[in-house]
């Protein structure tokens, strides 16, 4: 490995398995406080990831887009690791299914809101995830 590398190792891991591990030129990660573009030599960073789309860039173009349902990102100068709870390539999202999921989430949220001490946090999270998923699918 040369001292100055123009790629950064990108790893995408879900609880079930290692989904992706490859050198990339740039990757854009949707963090809670805004999207972060990670290039080689990025400073050390740990951030939470919101539901959204990770874009892998190559030669100034988006080569691959992957939807993640939130998680964590750890960035070091040589590596960018994203721990995702759920990850689907944007191309594989079925808009109809995403819509149904959003509908279900909406109902669950209203139900949780109606119940006295209902757990709205989980329902809200699911709703946001579904919303972002649908947005990702329709942007494709």
């Amino acid at each position, binding site marked *: 490995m040369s001292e100055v590398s123009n790629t950064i190792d990108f*790893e995408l*891991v*879900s*609880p*079930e*398995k*290692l989904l992706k*591990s490859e050198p990339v030129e740039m990757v854009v990660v949707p*963090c*809670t*406080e805004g999207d*972060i573009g990670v290039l080689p030599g990025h*400073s*050390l*960073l*740990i*951030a*939470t990831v919101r539901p959204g789309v990770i874009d892998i860039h190559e030669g100034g173009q988006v080569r691959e887009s992957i939807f993640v349902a939130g998680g*964590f990102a*750890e960035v*070091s100068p*040589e*590596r960018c*690791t994203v*721990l995702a709870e759920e990850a689907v390539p944007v191309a594989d999202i079925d808009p109809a299914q995403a819509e149904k999921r959003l509908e279900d989430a909406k109902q669950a949220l209203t139900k949780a809101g109606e119940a006295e001490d209902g757990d709205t946090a989980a329902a809200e999270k699911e709703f946001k995830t579904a919303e972002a998923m649908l947005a990702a699918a329709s942007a494709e």
Partner: protein
Amino acid sequence: MPNLKDLKVRINSVKSTQKITSAMKMVAAAKLRRAQENAEAARPYAEVMERMVADVGESLGGIEGAPPMLVGTGSTQIHLIVACTADRGLCGGFNGAIIREVRTMAHDLKRDGKIVRILCVGRKGRDGLKREFGDDIVETIEGIGRRGVEFADARKVAETLITMFDAGGFDVCTIVFNRFQSAMTQILTSQLLIPFAAPETADDEAGKDSAGADDPGPSAIFVYEPEEQEILAELLPKNINQQVFQALLESSASEHGARMTSMDNATRNAGDMIDSLTLTFNRTRQAAITRELIEIISGAEAL
């Protein structure tokens, strides 16, 4: 002198036992492959997450108001032991090893004047522990991994843990499970879940160094977005989830491995037994024939 008919019955019964054990071996082998794949696939996530918690924890370490899930409640009075066993037996020393370990741990802790609570995952663990520690078992979770371990199963266990911890149910939590190494060997592991213990990186296989090779040193300073506290608040329960999930996966792979090995042994033993019984059977048969011949001949001679 054993009766011919009895021997025949014996041989047949051993034969059908052998059929069962060899079928169980096949089933375990098939399940083992899947469980092993799952367990190995899940390792990277657990490792990265552990590293992340360690990094965040390090920069927070020693600061007032760090979450108790990370640094402990300040007391070590109540210990919770999570015992991961199987729901079914016939898997060699798999369950026994866990039960023995939990028993030793519990005795040691009690001798030091601590309060011990036990959460059993899997029916066999409860069966083995209830006589001695019946009052200490707080809960038993069964039916995990019947169709492969799913993340939801782990979440169920982890949620029980977190709720209990938040309610002040325990100070220290250790999970005891069998780490899968090969179908023949399982490594009995007790891992501290709460408070968080930094992983010992040395015990990981040397082959998988891709993830840890260019690790920034532990003293590296990270930028956090949002604040460490907020990240930790989200990360810690997730980490518990993941560690439990990993333990369950390893345990399930180990269970199938242990069952496969023990059923293989059982099949072989049954084979040996059939051989020796058949030998006795044939000898007895021959002896009976000889005896009859002698009777006839000596009868004829007497005339």
